[in-house]
């Protein structure tokens, strides 16, 4: 389990010190090559972006460096010495930390315990100093600008907060190389800014960061150099400032993509969904709004504002304590997701690993999971029909896979996300609740998603769109609602919604006292 180091001399020093080199890294899964002869040099003290379409191999490369996967071929050099990274622990000892694309944590342990895990001081029987751990955890979270009670369990934290805990854990590790796999996907601009500040500070201390993201503007704001992957090949490594966005996209995808698609002009119909006075103590209060047929209503706000809680309440996952929900003018009782599905609602959750995918099951079953009657027209499942329907979705959503029988856990994050969206489109919903639907989806497919969402609205669906990506929210929504601390604080028509106005409404008005208790 330990890392062995052996020296390979004679490497000519470049003008900058190279921290880590990959040489000829190749990875196969079940005979399918997903990385091919990747050579990459990381400088000490740089922030280096990995870009590429969904399934291009970014996470796989990151996992190889961090000891999660072993390369099929190729070597890694750390400070010009060959290393074998046999396990994540070995990577940790070498000073390499990976922040996973899907946060991994122990839901029943507290935040401070999660932060302390995996830190190995070589004394397996050493005493745990709880008070010290708690103090450390508090200061770490404060550094990240997160006010949260570190003794509360991870279970129930929003995906953004989980992500921040992961980031805090990486910070605590004092690693020389921190790999962040789409850390910003669930975060709002405020958290992203904090993360960037800290990243720059780390760089100035001489540490290196590998940053994976599908948001070009972030890469541009943060990264010194970019490496672009396509289909498992490294296509280019360049200084960020030497490439234009269009060039990057062309290298990534090999063609032009449309930008943000303004919504199709649609005629807005009657009210499809009306919620009135929805309240769940401690989560959200007195939420009322309407969505009409053909309308896209955006729901903005900072992480923790309660947007996801409202969505979950409407869909019956964690119903509100009071208030009413009306579908097509009829007040309905939604106590279970099954009730919501019966009313023609669909819900794409933000946290695909926890609430979205069936990791061990084939992609085909994942796609058809919400439409049993469609694959079993006479009461019994027809596997051929299921395959046809699944393959149809695969084509429509451009899901990259080897076979529809493949367990969905083997797909890249963005491709899993496409499959979940495909699942709910099959139900032919009248009202869609999309919670961060483009999380982890690449630029090319995002544009397709936007077009698809626009087309759904144009065909008379009502859509509630929760997104932390402001440009996306502003471009797609007919109306933008803003939540802050569990209350609706803004309602903007399409023309009036700007980044400033939305952010202004999103920032808490009153200063919070004792947030630690409030959070618990």
């Amino acid at each position: 389990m330990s890392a062995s180091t052996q020296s390979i001399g004679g490497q000519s020093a470049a003008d900058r010190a190279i921290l880590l080199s990959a040489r000829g890294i190749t990875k196969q899964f079940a005979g399918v090559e997903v990385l091919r002869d990747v050579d990459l040099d990381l400088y000490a003290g740089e922030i280096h972006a990995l870009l590429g379409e969904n399934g291009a191999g970014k996470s796989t490369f990151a996992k190889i460096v961090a000891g999660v996967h072993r390369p099929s071929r190729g070597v890694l050099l750390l400070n010009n010495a060959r290393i074998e990274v046999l396990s994540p622990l070995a990577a940790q000892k070498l000073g390499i930390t990976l922040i996973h694309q899907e946060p991994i944590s122990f839901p029943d342990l507290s935040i401070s315990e999660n932060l302390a895990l995996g830190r190995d001081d070589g004394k397996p029987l050493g005493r745990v100093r709880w008070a010290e751990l708690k103090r450390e955890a508090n200061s770490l979270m404060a550094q990240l600008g997160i006010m949260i009670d570190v003794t509360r369990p991870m279970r129930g934290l929003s995906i953004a907060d989980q992500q921040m805990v992961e980031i805090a854990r990486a910070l605590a590790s004092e690693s020389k190389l921190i790999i962040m796999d789409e850390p910003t996907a669930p975060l709002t601009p405020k958290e992203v800014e904090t993360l960037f500040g800290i990243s720059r500070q780390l760089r100035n201390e001489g540490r290196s960061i590998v940053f994976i993201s599908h948001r070009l503007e972030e890469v541009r704001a943060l990264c010194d150099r970019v490496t672009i992957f396509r289909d498992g090949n490294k296509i280019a490594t360049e200084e960020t400032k030497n490439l234009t966005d269009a060039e990057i996209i062309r290298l990534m995808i090999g063609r032009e993509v449309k930008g943000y698609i303004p919504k199709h002009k649609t005629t807005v119909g009657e009210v499809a969904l009306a919620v009135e006075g929805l309240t769940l103590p401690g989560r959200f209060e007195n939420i009322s709004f309407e969505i009409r047929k053909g309308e896209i209503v955006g729901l903005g706000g900072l992480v923790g504002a309660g947007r996801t809680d409202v969505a979950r309440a409407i869909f019956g996952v964690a119903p509100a304590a009071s208030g009413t929900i009306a579908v097509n003018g009829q007040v309905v009782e939604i106590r279970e997701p099954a009730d919501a599905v019966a009313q023609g609602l669909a819900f794409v959750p933000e946290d695909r690993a926890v609430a979205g995918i069936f990791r061990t099951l084939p992609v085909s079953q994942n796609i058809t999971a919400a439409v049993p009657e469609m694959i079993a027209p006479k009461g019994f499942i027809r596997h051929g029909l299921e395959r046809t329907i699944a393959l149809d979705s695969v084509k429509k959503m451009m899901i990259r896979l080897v076979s529809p029988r493949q367990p969905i856990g083997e797909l890249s994050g963005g491709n899993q996300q496409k499959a979940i969206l495909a699942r709910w489109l099959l139900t032919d919903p009248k009202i869609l609740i999309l919670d961060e639907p483009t999380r982890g989806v690449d630029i090319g497919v995002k544009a397709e998603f936007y077009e698809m969402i626009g087309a759904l609205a144009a065909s008379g669906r009502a859509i509630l769109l929760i997104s932390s990506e402001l440009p996306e929210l502003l471009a797609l929504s007919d109306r933008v609602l803003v939540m802050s601390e569990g209350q609706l604080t803004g309602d903007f028509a399409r023309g009036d919604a700007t980044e400033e106005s939305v952010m202004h409404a999103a920032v808490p008005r009153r200063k919070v006292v004792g947030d630690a208790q409030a959070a618990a």
Partner: protein
Amino acid sequence: MSVPTVSPRGVAETRRMLAGHMNELGLLAIIVILYGVFGALSPGFLSANNQVNILRDGATIGIAAWAQTLVIVAGEIDISVGPMVAFIAVIMAFLMKVPVPLPFALIGGVVLGLCLGSLAGVLRAIFSVPSFVATLGLWSALRGLALFMTNALPVTFDDNDTLDWIGDNVFGLPVSAVVMVILFGVFVFVSRKTAFGRSVYAVGGNANAAHLCGINVTRIRILVFAISGLMAAITAIMLLARLGSGNAGAASGLEFDVIAAVVVGGTSLSGGRGSMLGTLLGVLTITVIGDGLVLYGINSFVQDVVRGVIIVVAVLLNVAASRRSGRHV
């Protein structure tokens, strides 16, 4: 898109099919090897008579194992099987002794099995008692209750032709084995072709996601335990017919064999993965080991050791196979 979304089709698909069935192929190989070894060691092993024995023993494990497969795929476990079989057999024996007509006694047993299974299911699904604990409680309580009611003595009743027939052979095959095979077909069908079967896999794969898909997770959980209870009742009928009396100490350790068969068959204890075909091969493996060791006549304590080792090795091979095919993380 310049890239085909479904890349190198044919080859990859075939590879995957093979990889998906590595486990079954491996088990088949193990069974063949076991037949070779035991056949060479003890002359009686390959006799027709002994094959019938293997089938009959297999039925005792198999019927309960089909249901256990569903339970484990759903991410749960039922360790109450052995005592439940004994308890139901004892109750049916008491009913026969009264005498209650056979059909009513059997129906009584079946209803009892359904109720006991549902009880475990309700404890799990509604009161959130972990299934290991809920069925551990049943395990202890049912065995104790059966022993208490019978004073650990067999409960005898008048001969019944129909029951004797169930304990006997048709066309040279044990009736219990025929029942096992028919039920196997039913379970394959249920697990592969019905929405219920799908839901069991979904709940075991990710209960949160299943809930969001509109699946009634509570109901699925109760149902799998109810089915497990039902199969325990059917096993109890076979046992009653074979022994001709109700015996509180019968079927001891059955839950061990049943769970071992399911796990050897490649079903994952963490839920969401497994197949009836795997369990069928697992049942055969466990039964052949048991039968072969008895025939060979080694010390019964050593038998347990050998059996334990073979089970662990089988699962190890299984894991190795799935890792090779890249399924494992």
